[in-house]
């Protein structure tokens, strides 16, 4: 079974601080990593291979730092990496990423299953999977919280707003996983050190035959600010019983309790 796990290089969000005056994120010296839900997708691929045999290829597109960042995915159990590296991919929007990843997958050729996270850790648009499905003309299963493989067929449980849906589909297919599908493994030290020695293919945009017109950005980012957290600063100064009742009423009127 050949599995492709698509992952995105993002800033380590745990280490991003916010400039208080402007609400802008401070991105200097923030290490790059693989997105959290992408790790769940990769983990699912590695687990399926451990059960059914085969190989996991981790695929990603980004700036030249990606060659280092991808070592984390290889340490987590991917057998090989195929990367598209170009400085223009550093802040590529979903439509561009989908084209580049789809063309990379075509270049790889044979595969049974493509796994992605439900959304990237930074933009979380959730568009790359559906766009790839359209370009590659493949069935797409999204919001997947558990996955089984039986021969050439997969069975997936989709977590929807008010129900669970069980679907089956023949491979090849694209599956977008949710974070609760698994707990991504912590890579062992020995695997980290072996990661750099695993096969890695680096491609250019020309090699995957991307048309410059397909690289045109259609979305303009107007601002990227942390949400405002205005505190109401209500103080209940009455005796404890009255204050408790007032607090309850205030929380209820804001819709936090008693809904």
């Amino acid at each position, binding site marked *: 079974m050949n599995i492709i796990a698509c992952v995105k290089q993002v800033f380590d969000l745990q280490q991003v601080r916010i400039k208080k005056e402007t609400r802008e994120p401070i991105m200097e010296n923030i*290490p790059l990593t693989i997105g959290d839900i992408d790790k769940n997708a990769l983990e699912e691929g590695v687990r399926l291979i451990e059960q059914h045999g085969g190989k996991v290829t981790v695929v990603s597109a980004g700036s030249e730092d990606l060659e*280092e*960042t991808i*070592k*984390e995915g290889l*340490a987590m159990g991917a057998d090989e990496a195929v990367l598209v590296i170009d400085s223009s991919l550093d802040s590529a929007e979903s439509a561009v990423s989908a084209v580049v990843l789809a063309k990379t997958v075509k270049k790889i050729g044979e595969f049974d299953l493509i796994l992605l996270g439900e959304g990237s850790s930074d933009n979380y648009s959730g568009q790359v999977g559906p766009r790839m499905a359209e370009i590659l003309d493949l069935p797409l299963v999204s919001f997947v919280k558990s996955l089984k493989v039986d021969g050439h067929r997969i069975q997936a449980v989709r977590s929807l707003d008010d129900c669970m849906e069980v679907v089956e589909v023949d491979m090849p297919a694209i599956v977008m996983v949710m974070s609760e599908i698994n707990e991504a493994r*912590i*890579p*062992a*030290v*020995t*695997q*980290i*050190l072996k*990661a*750099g020695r695993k096969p890695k293919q680096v491609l250019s945009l020309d090699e995957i035959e991307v048309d410059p017109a397909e690289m045109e950005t259609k979305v303009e980012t107007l601002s990227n600010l942390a949400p405002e957290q205005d505190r109401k600063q209500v103080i209940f100064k009455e005796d404890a019983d009255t204050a408790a009742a007032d607090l309850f009423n205030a929380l209820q009127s804001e819709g936090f309790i008693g809904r």
Partner: protein
Amino acid sequence: MEFKFTKEQELIQKTAREFAQKRIEPIMFQIDEHNELPDYIPKEIGELGLAGIPHPEEYGGSGADYVSYVLALEQIGRYSSGAATTITGNNLSINAIKMFGTEEQKANWLPELCQGKKCSTFVFTEPATGSDMKMLTCKAKLDGDEWVLNGTKRFATNAERPGPMTVFAVDDQSGYPTAFLFEKHCPGYTISEPWDKIGYRGAHTYDVYLKDVRIPKEDVLGEIGKGFMILQQNIGFGKISISSLALGRAQGALEESIKYAKERVQKGRPIAKFPTLQSRLADMAAKVEACRWLLYRLGYMASNAKTNEDRIQLAQQSALTKMFVTPTSLDVIRDAVQIHGSYGLMKGYQVELFYRDAVVAEIIEGVLDVQKILVGSSLVG
């Protein structure tokens, strides 16, 4: 000169941090209160390759370097020094066996130690003997093809767990200390109840009684009568461990202080807004950074210590680092307790636990005054 880690070093640091946050932080107070480390912690440490970070793959180690070792211990020490002793205790014996063991001893002991499947004990202290090797009373007598060991060893870490023991005793052939390497829990080997320590809880410390313990003649580590040299060259590595944990603890105290100061409101505003408190935090941060870079440099030196001369130089620099890092870490934690006020004295607050561990760190692997003597004497020649 470039202050930059390799991607592998960053990832090893991340592995240690994730493991510590997910598996150790939730039970850090439980380990301390019950003075007990759950068996799954050493097992998972072994599975993640954290028990043998700087040792070669051919001996079952992970094949990384001492900078990675420092980075990993810093992360684990951030939450529990007791849990980290699974790594640091083994590291002492692994180094000694790696440097001075025969190929047979290396093959026999190193893989299981590097993979955390066994816990070693490395002990020279006796009831009346601290850092002075010349005062050893533990004796080894050659009887045909066997050594017969008699004596009492004090403050032996992990003496209850299965694995090898490196023990120092004066042999009757040379009249000098010799290192012996054998499996614990052999006939004649008994241990006391664990000492009830102030800190480093979860890592048990015992007295070990050796009464007519008979071991094969070949179970000598290194040369007969050369125990002092083994100790001298190996002890530097032990001080790296203790200092790395002290760094993690100081970083933890700083983080906890910042968090507390932002939450604690006095006179209508968080105490983090008070200039005096910010000044105290600034002092703490500067001290943590000073410790950090002294240690990372020491990790680099340890990775490149190939010759006996290198290792003697490393031992001096390890003493200097421990002499600075462990009391500085205690200073930072004392500041953290001050910031927490009375809460800092209470169980269930990390800084209270750190304070007790920091007191231990100043003492073990050689008290401060001894470190100063080592450093001072090396300066004047």
